[in-house]
């Protein structure tokens, strides 16, 4: 009886409490910014901010350089036209927000919280305790989000974001950014506090609060607020050639040549230097700084180490029949099907046994039938012989210059038993799909190949792409900056995004994480922009020392200039400089 009474009292307390307390806990419903664009920074969120409006953002020198080089024409490039608002900007952009729940189908517990809206791409926040993917996984514009509760607050942590922006004027976030969001509900409002930490472009965390109010009308989802709602709600986007431009043209401003910055300062009556003050401009004392008209030095970018790679040999599933093995030298692509195993590159000889075990964990005892090499270096070809003997003696296929380079390097005779090609491409049919080996010789070396799995829709790029280092386009191995850019544009000819500029064709680089079309385009942009900066210096007669002093890779070194690497940004600049100087 006593137990029953206590239970009833507990029940009563719970009933009394539930109305007030649960109202604070459930964000589900339809929300919109007050006044459609909110009541803060409406020009930024409506028609878009002006070039030069960098104040209030904790940009470091690298972030400022990237912002200043941005051109609004960037969005006219076909590969970028469908780019959605990235996660770092989503809640700030003009949008509606529909918060829902995703139930685990068997136990019927809430597995995830969904964030839908008119911002272009929906987000899923997993609250079932799962881990974030490994560093080698694909990044997206929305990133990968997990959540947990701290009292009434939903805390969302997001990683694996592609390059994005804080404002729609080129103020950047990098792929190494981490975002933490706090969703809180107060009466009929949801407050989202967003904190972005980005060691590449920010000198301290960027903090922004955004508010939504409960919508009194159904809000559009997966549409676009300015399109009619009587048609399909899926936000379609078809890239097209908007301007007549040379293939591979990348719009940008050379350092010091962005004239819009002076226009902005003049229009708003502020000193020009104010735009380049980063974190200092966020704090109250900056008002006195403006009054004294004394410029503030900008924070230098932090010295970064490469993203922590998984230790040892590991694998992740890429798509369909394709897997990626990392940690054995260069990346190894593994195609597994009814007919057996095909490898693209084999890592170093020292790691062959570990790779063999990893292949076994993926493919069981299926034999390796084919090996394709995208170039000649030991970290791509070192495991050829031991892995070719895994099961049956596999055929090794590469461009003929791979064999020649191996022979020159004194490789053992057994390593030279390969099928070579010397035309534009070579095609084989294996495991139910066409595999096209495409010559892009002259990028990294004179024996480079791409490998395109037509059925799986995966391209293996080899060292044409290295996601943690600048491309090593050195002429003494037959590579060149011109060949590198041509190879990247060739990859972009093949790739097709699934929706809103991401997904679809997956690209496995020689080193680092998985890419898709948007990533390749960003990498192509980086290489092209640095080439243009060097070219401009060469045209002006600058010495190499003068060029290096101008820090032409400043805005990209945080992603691609791993300290301690045997190929630095300075090496990359020097290689381009010597090639372009020699071509004069």
């Amino acid at each position, binding site marked *: 009886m006593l137990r029953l009474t206590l239970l*009833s*009292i507990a*029940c*009563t307390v*719970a*009933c*009394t*409490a*539930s109305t*007030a*307390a649960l109202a*604070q*806990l459930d964000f589900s419903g339809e929300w919109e910014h*007050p*006044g459609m*664009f909110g*009541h*803060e*920074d*409406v*020009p930024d969120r409506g028609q878009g901010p002006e070039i030069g409006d960098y*104040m*209030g953002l904790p940009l470091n020198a690298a972030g400022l350089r990237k912002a200043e080089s941005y051109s609004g024409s960037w969005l006219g490039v076909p590969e970028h036209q469908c780019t959605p608002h990235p996660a770092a900007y989503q809640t700030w952009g003009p949008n509606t927000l529909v918060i829902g729940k995703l139930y685990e189908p068997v136990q019927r517990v809430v597995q995830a919280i969904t964030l839908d809206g008119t911002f272009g791409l929906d987000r899923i926040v997993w609250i079932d305790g799962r881990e974030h993917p490994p560093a080698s996984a694909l990044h997206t514009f929305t990133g990968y989000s997990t959540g*947990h*509760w*701290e*009292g*009434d*607050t939903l*805390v969302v942590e997001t990683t694996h974001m592609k390059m994005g922006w804080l404002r729609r004027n080129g103020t950047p976030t990098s792929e190494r950014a981490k975002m*933490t969001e*706090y969703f*809180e509900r*107060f*009466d009929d*409002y949801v*407050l989202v*506090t967003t*904190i972005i*930490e980005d060691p590449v472009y920010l000198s301290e*965390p*960027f*903090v*922004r*609060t955004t*508010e939504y*109010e409960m919508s009194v009308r159904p809000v559009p989802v997966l549409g676009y607020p300015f399109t009619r709602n009587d048609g399909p709600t899926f936000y379609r986007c078809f890239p097209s050639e908007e301007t007549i431009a040379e293939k591979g043209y990348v719009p940008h401003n050379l350092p010091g040549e962005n004239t819009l910055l002076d226009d902005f300062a*003049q229009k*708003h*009556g*502020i000193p020009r230097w104010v735009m380049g003050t980063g974190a200092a*401009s*966020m*704090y*109250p*004392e*900056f*008002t006195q700084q*403006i*009054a004294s008209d004394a410029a503030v030095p900008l924070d230098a970018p932090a010295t970064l180490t490469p993203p922590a790679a998984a230790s040892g040999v590991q694998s992740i599933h890429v798509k369909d029949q394709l897997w990626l093995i990392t940690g054995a030298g260069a990346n190894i692509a593994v195609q597994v099907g009814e007919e057996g195993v095909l490898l693209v590159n084999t890592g170093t000889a020292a790691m062959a046994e570990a790779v063999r075990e990893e292949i076994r964990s993926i493919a069981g005892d299926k034999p390796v039938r084919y090996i394709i090499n995208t170039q000649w270096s030991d970290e791509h070809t070192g495991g050829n012989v031991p892995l070719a003997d895994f099961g049956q003696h596999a055929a090794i296929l590469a461009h003929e210059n791979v064999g020649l380079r191996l022979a020159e390097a004194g490789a053992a005779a057994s390593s030279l038993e390969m099928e070579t090609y010397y035309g534009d491409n070579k095609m084989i049919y294996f495991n139910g799909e066409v595999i096209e080996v495409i010559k892009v010789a002259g990028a990294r070396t004179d024996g480079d190949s791409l490998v395109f799995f037509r059925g799986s829709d995966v391209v293996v790029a080899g060292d044409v792409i290295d996601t943690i280092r600048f491309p090593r386009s050195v002429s003494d191995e037959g590579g060149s900056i011109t060949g590198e850019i041509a190879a990247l544009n060739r990859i972009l000819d093949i790739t097709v995004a699934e929706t809103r500029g991401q997904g679809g064709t997956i690209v496995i680089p020689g080193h680092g994480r998985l890419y898709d079309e948007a990533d390749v385009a960003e990498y192509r942009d980086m290489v092209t922009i640095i080439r243009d900066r060097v070219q401009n210096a060469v045209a002006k007669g600058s010495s190499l020392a003068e060029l290096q002093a101008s820090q032409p890779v400043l805005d990209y070194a945080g992603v691609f200039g791993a300290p301690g690497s045997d190929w630095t940004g300075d090496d990359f600049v020097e290689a381009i400089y010597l090639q372009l100087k020699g071509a004069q």
Partner: protein
Amino acid sequence: MSTSRPFLAGAVLTLASITAVAQPPGGFQPPPPRSPRESAQVDISGRWVALVTEDWLWRMVTAPKGDVTSIPVNPRGRQVANEWNLEQDNANGEQCRAFGAAGLMRLPTRLNISWQDDNTLRIDSDAGEQTRLLNFAPVAASTEATWQGHSVASWTRAVGGFDMRQIFGNPKDNAPGPVKAGLKVVTDHLRPGYLRKNGVPYSAETRLTEYFSTVRAGGNEYLSVLSVVNDPVYLSGAFVTSSQFKKEADDAGWNPTPCTTAPPALTPTQQERGN
């Protein structure tokens, strides 16, 4: 619906039974009520500095006269904004119009928040040297309107910190310690002032509702203030903003300055040319 009915019925029955049974003399004595300070759902005390990452061109510098960007002013509000006269304000001793409660938290300022007593939170700003008192206990409002008005505060979780998640939620989500919630403050009896330094007005009929909360990230603590300004005189709808502050370890940056508004960065002629 099917599960809530028996639950509700049980509660009703229990309530009825408790009401029906006479209290024993000298029996159960409820604990003395905790003060608002003791029952705080969120600790916002400390020193905070504004992070002006939004509306920079309207907060860090004085925007041109008539610039009401982002604010839902009605025609009357727009007209008053167009008539703003900084020299006249200064001459009339009205320098603090931009430092009233409805505009204060958007200014580039530092805050020192402390408990004045167990029922009153005090917010001091170095910008304009203003003081706000957030009253948890009933306090009669002054008959005279003031820059900071009369504020009534309450914790947003009203049921004594009872966490429903402990019953219905995932236990692993419950960190030990007090339940995190927020602070709600409603302010009226305001002396007419400005929402921004360039004279965008709010009237004496303004009612300001604010929600305060804190989050911790990366070794820092942040204070968020969601602000809803309702003014039937000058606004066509609620003016909703949120501002963020970072906690500071000491008062090294504290710089009390009297109410001062710098002239707009652009002269009217420059403004006309720029636009």
